[in-house]
């Protein structure tokens, strides 16, 4: 029997936007803010996914991942670094046994336009090089054609190839156009074996937004209520300020609750967010804002 994804729950866009507006009225101050900022820092997948990536760039970023800001005592590391498969080995050399995990994009990232065989090879390269996590993209063209079972089968095949590595499935919501589609793609990914669902590659605008993330969190919640199985969430791209990270955490806290409030179940895919959080934490510790020149930019 084939699964039928035509009847996934519908989404009311106005309702979603109102709920998001409500999260954003929460006033996060003092102790709550400190805890939230450290938590957000600890949830970051520090990312470099550029055509011009080199070993040098990847090494520098990996060092930064372990030493976000050594002059501020008590800061956590980020959760992981996220690189292309051919750079996983380099990342492994620097990170060695540190707590920072290595995530690798795969499956013809970012377009996903290739054959399954090549996508499986891509995934195998990442895994064999030592990646702890694989970030795959779905075939959006097939999805928009209504070929949902194709999308499902592809995810299931990649999941199979991942072995012990956790699989994050990127929906590229900026290409899916409607929240109904976001919900449908989330359900497909979850049922096909995703450990995490992720909004975007960062290569398409809009990348992560709060309404899209809320729809995906609700898909995770509904799955959890039915099966008791937890799925992780990773908004990626476009989240660059500490304030917006805190708003995402409020949304996570009030939608999925404390169980998800850690980097095993929630990640931010971001490159510049870490430094804004450092700036805010530094201000909390030292009482004043200081020049961005004090914060390293690897």
């Amino acid at each position, binding site marked *: 029997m084939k699964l039928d994804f035509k009847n996934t*729950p*519908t*989404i*009311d866009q*106005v*309702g*979603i936007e*109102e*709920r998001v507006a409500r999260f954003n*009225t*929460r*006033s*996060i*101050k*003092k*102790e*709550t*803010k400190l*805890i*939230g900022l450290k*938590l957000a820092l*600890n949830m970051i997948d520090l990312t470099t996914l550029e055509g011009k990536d080199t070993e040098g760039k990847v090494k520098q970023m990996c060092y930064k991942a372990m030493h976000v800001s050594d002059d501020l005592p008590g800061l*956590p590391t980020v959760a992981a670094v996220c690189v292309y498969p051919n750079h996983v080995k380099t990342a492994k050399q620097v990170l060695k046994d540190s707590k920072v995990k290595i995530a690798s994009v795969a499956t013809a990232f970012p377009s996903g336009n290739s054959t399954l065989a090549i996508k499986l090879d891509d995934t195998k390269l990442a895994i064999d090089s030592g990646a702890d996590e694989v970030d795959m993209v779905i075939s959006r063209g097939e999805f928009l054609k209504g070929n949902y079972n194709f999308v499902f089968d592809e995810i299931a095949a990649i999941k199979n190839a991942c072995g012990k590595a956790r699989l994050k499935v990127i929906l590229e919501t900026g290409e899916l156009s409607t929240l109904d589609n976001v919900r449908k793609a989330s359900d497909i990914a979850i049922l096909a074996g995703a450990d995490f669902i992720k909004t975007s590659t960062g290569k398409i605008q809009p990348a992560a937004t709060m309404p899209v993330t809320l729809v995906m969190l*609700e898909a995770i*919640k*509904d799955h959890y*209520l039915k099966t008791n199985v937890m799925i992780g969430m990773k908004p990626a791209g476009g989240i660059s300020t500490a304030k917006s990270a805190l708003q995402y*955490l409020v949304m996570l*806290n*009030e939608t999925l609750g*404390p*169980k998800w*409030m*850690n*980097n*095993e179940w929630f990640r931010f895919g971001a490159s510049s967010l870490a430094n804004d959080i450092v700036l805010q934490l530094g201000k909390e510790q030292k009482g004043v804002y200081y020049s961005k020149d004090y914060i390293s930019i690897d």
Partner: protein
Amino acid sequence: MEKETVSNFKWEYSPAPEAKDHIKLKPQYDLFINGKFVKPNSKKYFDSYSPGSGEKLASVAQANAKDVDTAVIAAKNAYDKVWKKMPAKERAKYIFRIARVIQERARELAVIESMDGGKPIRESRDFDIPTAANHFFYYAGWADKLEYAFPNRKPESLGVAAQIIPWNFPLLMAAWKIAPALATGNTVVLKPAESTSLTALKLAEIIQECDLPPGVVNIITGFGDTGAAMVAHPLVNKIAFTGSTDVGKIIQKAIAGTNKKATLELGGKAANIVFDDAPINQAVEGIVNGIFFNQGHVCCAGSRLFVQENVAEEVIQKLKARMQTLIVGDPLDKNTDIGAINSKEQLDKINEYLKIGVKEGLELYQTSAAIPKKGFYCKPTLFIGAAQSNRVVQEEIFGPVLTIQTFRTIEEVIEKANNIPYGLSAGVWTDKGSKIFNLTTKLRAGVIWANTYNKFDPTSPFGGYKESGFGREGGLHGLMPYLKF
């Protein structure tokens, strides 16, 4: 993060109180009559308390029949000598000015509204005060366009309008009443509810600041007997009342046989109907907004939830989970979702209904977080498994209490939704447009929201059927009750 800390992690929001040190309240407020604050003939004052903290905020004059007479005569004189004769576009400028000053003093008004009435600052700041300003803006625009609003019908003003407003949206209700009355060329005597007089008195200060001609708006404070004297006064041409159905009936009797016009906006017990094809997560949000907005002190609150049986379990499970994230507490904290119950009397009434519901054998569900010990608070409450015959289903509770009934077919839910003496509002949740139109034609309610709830706009008329009253406020329709043709 270590696994141990992960499982115990709880992210509580630190207190984020809105500052109130900039608020200047006089220890004693007099009556605003003929453009001046004057001592009451009664020589009596009563105290106004903050329901959130129990502290006394100010004492307020208690108007007697003599004071009412003075106010009505002032309004009558202002009508005959100034306001009726003034070109409409000049009237509009005054109304516009009031709107601007409300905007300028929005923060102060929001804080006082939350201190005096108990509603969360998030609502007074983001809803009450901006919407009040918008009503003045909107009706300022109509003032010189009445002949276009009602072509070939020669609209004329009525005279003196006596307006009596409730305690649930003090400033907003004042705006709903005053703005269309002034725009149509009437003068006003307004009485706020005794437990929430302060923002109306601040509005009196604003009206003074705007140099409105003396007597055009008079604001007098007091209890039910003051209101009765207003209704009975022979020089009053128009009664506008928002409040309970019981008082509405008394007013109807009192004006029988006179040529006073009336608009009554009374109680409600709205059906909020969730079908199995609704966007369930957003429907749950709409249910929460429908009943817990302003502690449920809303005449159009969605207090009777009807859920289609095949999704009832899911909806109730999600509703319970969502309710656990609601923060009940200090109205002035920016993170508060549900503030204080307006008065001890109202809290007693709600608690009485909670007892009745339990006695009727309904399953009671309340959220687990603690509520403040001082002040008047009530936990958000569900009564699950309710039937049409339960008293808690039939009677208006006016608090954060939702009854949940299930239904099987569309015919059944229409019949049950209409089986109530009230008919103010209703909500429908479904993904299917044709179903929405089918229901809106068959539900006997003045306002019906589809896939949303508790939305208000100055351009949109509001009012009820049956025992929820008559006449419309807001929009072009809101001009008509203040005009004769």
